[in-house]
């Protein structure tokens, strides 16, 4: 029991240290410097990398859906996004694509 609480506090420390360091570094970094441009680009690349990994190589509950259904959902969401520039419509299109492939086609 105590060990689990210690684990939770360590997990907190393991995340909080990055946030804290981010404040320290962010405070000293000039706006629009090359470093801050690079940090933003890498952060965006990493976050969308993580998300694409969930789409292509998921774990847990998502892994019980088919790769086809997830790729169709991604494709439809992107097409609708580029076509009518509406986030809600794009997400709904993705959802419909996912449901259609999972329950009606496969």
């Amino acid at each position: 029991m105590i060990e689990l609480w210690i684990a939770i506090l360590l997990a907190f420390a393991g995340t909080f240290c990055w946030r804290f360091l981010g404040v320290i570094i962010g405070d000293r970094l000039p706006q629009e410097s090359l470093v801050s441009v690079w940090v933003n680009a890498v952060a965006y690349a990493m976050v969308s990398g993580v998300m694409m990994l969930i789409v292509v190589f998921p774990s847990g509950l998502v892994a019980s859906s088919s790769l086809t259904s997830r790729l169709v959902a991604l494709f439809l969401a992107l097409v609708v996004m580029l076509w009518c520039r509406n986030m809600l419509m794009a997400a709904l299109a993705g959802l419909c694509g996912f449901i259609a492939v999972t329950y009606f086609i496969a």
Partner: protein
Amino acid sequence: MLSAFSRSPVPDDNPARPLNDGVWAAFSIPGVSIFANMVGFAAIARQAGFDLPMTLATTLLVWGMPGQVAMASLHIAGASLLVIFTAVALANMRMLLMSISGMEMMALNEGRHPFWQKVLLMQMLAITSWVQIGMVEGRYSKPGLVRYFAGFASVIYALGMLGTLAGYYLSDWASPDVLRAVLVITPLYILLMVINARRMLNRVAGVAGGALCPVLYPVLGEWSILIGGIAAGTMVVMADRFWQRASTGAGGPE
């Protein structure tokens, strides 16, 4: 939120406006998605033998899905405390980049806020709220963007806690079909936010990282996120600098 899509600047005459906008924007896809993700986390945590206070404390304190899941699953596997700490720190390392980026987007280094407020704001930062300000950035003044973020991120934080609470009790009868559909839509939604980032360079970096990481994954495993992210981001910035220099004539000052 449909209004979240407009790119036109919001007049800066009413200080309450950005806060309200942020609050309402959160009660949409982002709120539903964070709620469902935390339902999923609570189910894993309960399996791992966490009681309710522990599960809630993990969401409240760690507030980063990959780290939370890494912690719960390593605990099931009986990993040592050192391993848990290292794994969580690695899984949530992108928080460093995201908080530097969030600080920069909101110009928090300009001395308008005491240090503790900045730390608190960054504690509230999660992927959802970070991609959100990356998209609406420019519509608000910098102080306005801070208020927008405070409103948005508070609601997201609260819905995350509610989802954790609900998931702990309801995961037995919550329909796995519905939960799975929401969990499938979450990464799509974040990807849609990425390609709508206000800064073009960040959009391109997002596309590059999204393409590179799955290609590297079979070889590098979890390291593909770090290595692929750094490689993609660096290449895009270098290409951009090269292109800028080529179009303005070589040899300009750094």
